[in-house]
């Protein structure tokens, strides 16, 4: 049975070109990226590292020395939050973030909160948007050291108004970090125009490899390293650079094609149209205006049925999706994102996320829609819940 993989928001299939570049690199360029006064093998790896850095920098309108490579988006988010908190220690102690950030921001904020940092968690409305006035009011010009708001949400696809958030932060002269792991490069990002001081990137969400991410750090941003071990990465991240993965990361950026975003958007729209037409009592989670959500994201709740059962049934049909149900998660808690949108536990438990990549195809839409329909029907038949809650 061929798998229809619709969990691309978790991790995308890799570009063959990126795999090839990495494989060749692993085969031939096994030295550690070294100082320029080293041996040729080390210098060649260093050159590849710097070329990759240039690729990332150019793609977001940054300078080369503003890109710090990390082991992934999680480490980049950790560096953004802990690194600025360290730099402002004793001076500023207030962090602003939202209730629906990726766990790497959420858990970092919680850790800081347990260590004397005051954290404001901005509310979101029932489509996942923060209130810009609430943000503006929350900033304490003397105490706030960082505002961290994700570019787009991992579960419900909400794309925040980053341009306005950037302006507000700049007007208060407060650092602005955005986790753009999911949105970039599908949604282009110019760090200067958007007044971004720190931005997180993750290779494996954009057809690149796991093990590589980056944090954009605007020059002169007060930040201290969190990973110790040498002067690498402008003395902001110790440890041997994972250059094979970084080279694959850069390759995936080079291969990026805007047309793929349109394709992904189109597939998502078609699936929603089909599901919405054939299944009753289904609700979109996240922005109803699809222009305000991630191109590949569809998240909806099916009344009266439980998510894990839906996912397992679909999996038996070769369709890979996820749910916000507690039974599905490692924590056995329903999705905090769904709950933060003000929905009931049940709505969270009944939610399914379909997320697309350029490797999906139109002929996958009908099978997914039909399988979903059958599964929902079958589960509703045996459900004790007879009306929508």
């Amino acid at each position: 049975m061929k798998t229809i993989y619709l969990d691309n928001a978790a991790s995308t299939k890799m570009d063959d070109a990126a795999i090839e570049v990495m494989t060749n690199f692993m085969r031939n360029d096994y030295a550690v990226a070294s100082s320029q006064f080293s041996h040729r093998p080390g210098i060649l790896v260093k050159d590849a590292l710097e070329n990759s850095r240039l690729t990332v920098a150019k793609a977001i309108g940054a300078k080369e020395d503003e890109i710090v490579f990390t082991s992934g988006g999680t480490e980049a988010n950790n560096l953004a939050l802990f690194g600025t908190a360290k730099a402002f220690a004793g001076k500023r102690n207030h962090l602003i973030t939202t209730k629906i950030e990726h766990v790497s921001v959420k858990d970092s904020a919680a850790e800081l909160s347990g260590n004397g940092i005051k954290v404001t968690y901005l509310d979101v409305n029932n489509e996942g948007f923060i209130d810009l006035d609430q943000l503006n009011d929350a900033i304490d010009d003397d105490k706030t050291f960082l505002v961290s708001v994700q570019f787009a949400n991992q579960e419900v696809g909400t794309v925040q108004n980053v341009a306005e958030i950037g302006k507000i932060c700049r007007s208060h002269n407060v650092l602005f970090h955005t986790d753009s792991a999911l949105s970039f490069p599908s949604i282009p990002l110019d760090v200067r125009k958007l007044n971004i001081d720190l931005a997180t990137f993750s290779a494996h969400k954009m057809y690149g490899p796991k093990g590589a991410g980056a944090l954009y750090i605007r020059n002169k941003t007060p930040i201290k390293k969190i990973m110790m071990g040498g002067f690498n990465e402008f003395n902001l991240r110790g440890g041997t650079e994972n250059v094979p993965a970084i080279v694959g990361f850069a390759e995936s950026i080079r291969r990026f094609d805007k047309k793929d975003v349109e394709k992904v958007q189109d597939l998502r729209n078609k699936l929603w149209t089909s599901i919405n037409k054939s299944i009753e009592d289904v609700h979109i989670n996240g922005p109803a205006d699809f222009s305000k959500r991630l191109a590949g994201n569809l998240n909806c709740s099916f009344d009266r049925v439980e998510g894990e059962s839906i996912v397992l049934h679909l999996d038996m049909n070769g369709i890979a999706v996820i749910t916000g149900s507690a039974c599905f998660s490692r924590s056995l808690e329903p999705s905090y994102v769904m709950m933060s949108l003000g929905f009931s536990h049940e709505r969270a438990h009944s939610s399914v996320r379909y997320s697309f990549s350029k490797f999906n195809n139109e002929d996958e839409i009908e099978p997914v829609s039909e399988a979903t329909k059958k599964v929902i029907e079958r589960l509703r038949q045996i459900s004790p819940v007879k009306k929508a809650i």
Partner: protein
Amino acid sequence: MPIPYSNKVIDHFLKPHNSGSIKDADAVATEGSPACGDMVKLYLKVDKKTKKIDDIKFESYGCASNIATASIITDIAKGKTIEEAKKVTWKAADELLGGLPPVKIHCAVLAVDSLHAAIENYEQSHGLVKNPKTTTKEIVLSRLKHVINPLTGFNVIKADLINDVVINNGIVTVYTKLAGDHQFAANIKEEIIERIEPLWDVKKVEVKFDD
């Protein structure tokens, strides 16, 4: 084999036995709630003379573990007397299913609980409880711990949603702190009634909102 469930679990999950409802059931019990992510409703039809379970059906809003366990315990219970059926344990179900993943045991327990609760409800409402206790406010509150507020996922006792319980001549009146136009008022009312009504000496249950 990537899936953490045995073939037996998957069989019951894909084609559950005894699923559905019984219109003129002699007893019904619900355990869990959609808010908790798992809910089972169990229906019993019991032969009045032999006390044998003539028919049993379940409905599940739940995960594979929950559905499969409900499926297999209804298989086991069918045809047994209620006394025999009381002895069905989640361990026996777990064994017959070829073992459930440890973190999923609670979903199986929920299904077994619904069988036990339905039998208890049957006994309560059919005068089969030996030395039955008079229903007290304490007993009512204890039963209300199984009623969940779908918004928070907490039961109505923990969530402090009950103002008072008054028992008068078999009529139980539950005073809640919820407004009558609360999003889940109807749901919670229904669940409260279902929980309290089967008690042997309860004639009627009234749920009052704080309007």
